[in-house]
């Protein structure tokens, strides 16, 4: 799959941009703050329905504009038919997704277009809280299967409803056992979707772990390989997490009534990362952590490729700032034979090397892009 045309309207620092992208890889070259990352962010938005940097759409809108528009035309290797995708957002009317002019949802984007983003901030996967790692797992899960997204959505909705009965239990305390009776259907739903989510996450981490072992075997010069294990909020034996989850929920009843929200469930999962048997977050050097974060993303790309039989689009933001020359070259060697790469950097020193690797060059200056014709 590759992006052959990107068009932006009032998005970040772009007033209006039409960017044709031909075959091959693409290099966005420009100083910091000129708008390289914004282009990658727009493509990520087309592939996932959301931004990896901003949690609110309003901040993506160019200064003073009422909304933004991001449009892309994609082509797959197998079909000659191209796919038109558009995400628009109005501050007054919300977000709309269109795929070949038909209204769609974020799950349709995740199903139709596969992107994997690399950025220096990926190191947060190692350093930050479990929430970052859960979000990473969930993104892969949704890219691999639309069912994962449904399960996740329904679980999150059930948890919100259930938490409401815990937070405002006085409202439902009419009659004997009123509050716990009102909570019961939500508990059932939380158990049903939560067990499914536990199961799917375990399977996902197993796949991730296997892929990572193969990828990172020799990368740490004797220090590796990178090992990832699932750390579910409720451990279980056998195939079905349901019985253990039921018991854990029943056991946490007093506690959740005291704090007013559901304390155990997949929303409290984590993933452990170890390098040579030692916890990466605490014992890994910054360099090792950055390299590991990159391998996690490479593993994501690998899983997506295996699942859909085509390479995802790789969006690579300023990786040369965190990888040393050798690691960067190894990275390029690994990915250049794959699908389309769109790479952004401020380091002109890479220009020659990337030209040799047949990257098309686009100069980014103050919200405008000048493509070098070759």
């Amino acid at each position, binding site marked *: 799959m590759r992006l052959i045309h990107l068009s932006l309207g009032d998005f970040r620092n772009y007033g209006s941009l039409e960017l044709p992208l031909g075959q091959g890889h693409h290099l966005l070259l420009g100083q910091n703050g000129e708008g390289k990352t914004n282009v990658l962010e727009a493509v990520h938005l087309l592939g996932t329905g959301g931004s990896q940097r901003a949690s609110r759409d309003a901040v993506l809108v160019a200064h003073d504009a009422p909304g933004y528009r991001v449009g892309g035309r994609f082509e797959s290797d197998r079909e000659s038919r191209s796919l038109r995708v558009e995400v628009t957002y109005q501050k007054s009317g919300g977000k709309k997704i269109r795929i070949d002019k*038909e209204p*769609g*949802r974020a*799950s*349709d984007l995740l*199903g139709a277009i596969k992107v994997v983003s690399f950025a220096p901030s990926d190191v947060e996967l190692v350093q930050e809280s479990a929430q970052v790692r859960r979000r990473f797992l969930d993104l892969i899960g949704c890219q691999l299967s*639309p*069912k994962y*997204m*449904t399960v996740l959505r*329904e679980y999150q*909705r*059930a948890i*919100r*409803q*259930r938490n*409401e*009965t815990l937070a*405002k239990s006085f*409202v*439902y305390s*009419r*009659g004997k056992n*009123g509050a716990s*009776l*009102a909570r*019961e*259907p*939500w508990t*059932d*739903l939380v158990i049903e979707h939560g067990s499914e989510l536990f199961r799917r996450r375990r399977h996902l981490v197993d796949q991730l772990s296997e892929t990572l072992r193969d990828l990172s075997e020799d990368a740490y010069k004797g220090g590796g390989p990178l090992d990832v294990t699932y750390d579910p909020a409720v451990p279980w034996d056998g195939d079905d997490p349901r019985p253990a989850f039921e018991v854990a929920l029943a056991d946490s009843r007093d506690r959740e009534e005291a704090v007013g929200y559901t304390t155990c469930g997949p929303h409290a999962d984590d993933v452990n990362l170890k390098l040579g048997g030692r916890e990466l977050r605490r014992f890994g050097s910054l360099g090792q952590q950055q390299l590991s974060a990159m391998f996690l993303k490479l593993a994501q790309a690998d899983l997506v490729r295996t699942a859909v039989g085509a390479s995802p689009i790789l969006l690579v933001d300023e990786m040369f700032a965190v990888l040393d020359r050798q690691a960067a070259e190894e990275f390029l060697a690994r990915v250049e034979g794959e699908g389309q790469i769109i790479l952004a950097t401020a380091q002109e020193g890479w220009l020659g090397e990337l030209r040799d690797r047949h990257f098309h060059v686009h100069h980014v200056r103050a919200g405008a892009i000048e493509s070098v014709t070759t």
Partner: protein
Amino acid sequence: MELGSEALGRLIDEFSRLPGIGRKTARRLAFHVLKADLPIVEGFARALVDVKRLVTFCESCHNITQVSPCSLCEDPRRQDVLVCVVEEPSDVLAIEGTGEYRGRYHVLHGVLSPLDGVGPDDLKIKELLARLHESRPTEVILALNPDTEGDATSFYLQKLLAPLGCVVSRIARGIPVGGDLEFADSVTLGRAIQGRERLGE
């Protein structure tokens, strides 16, 4: 702006209270009323008052009706052994439109949703139980919307109804007739595959 008439101002205020009607539209409607013939306006006013005065809810199924019990509950040709539970009166209309169902109805007037402050006591659930205890149907069909809240309400009812010993079923979810599989969203298609039916039965 001076309207020159206090009555006209009042009418504009009333119109603009309606959902989806802004100040400008309210003014246009009011001037339209002003221009219309008196019998038409009187008919309109009567219709407004009548709908409030005459339409009530059926004491048995809680659907909207002018006489309680409603015609659907009184119809001797309908089967008492089947009861279909729906969220809103409009859902009764939708199911009646299919011509496929000849049982009784029960309207809950909503679904469980703590986030919207709706608990079991806010729905016609007690009434449903009391009714089923008396009529003892063989099957209760839960025809609620296929979303999280509809599912939770179905779960809740399923447990409550278990002691009655009747069959509790839920409407199937899947691909619309005349639809194209290629264009079905993946979630619906996935559910349709899960709930597939065997041919020749």
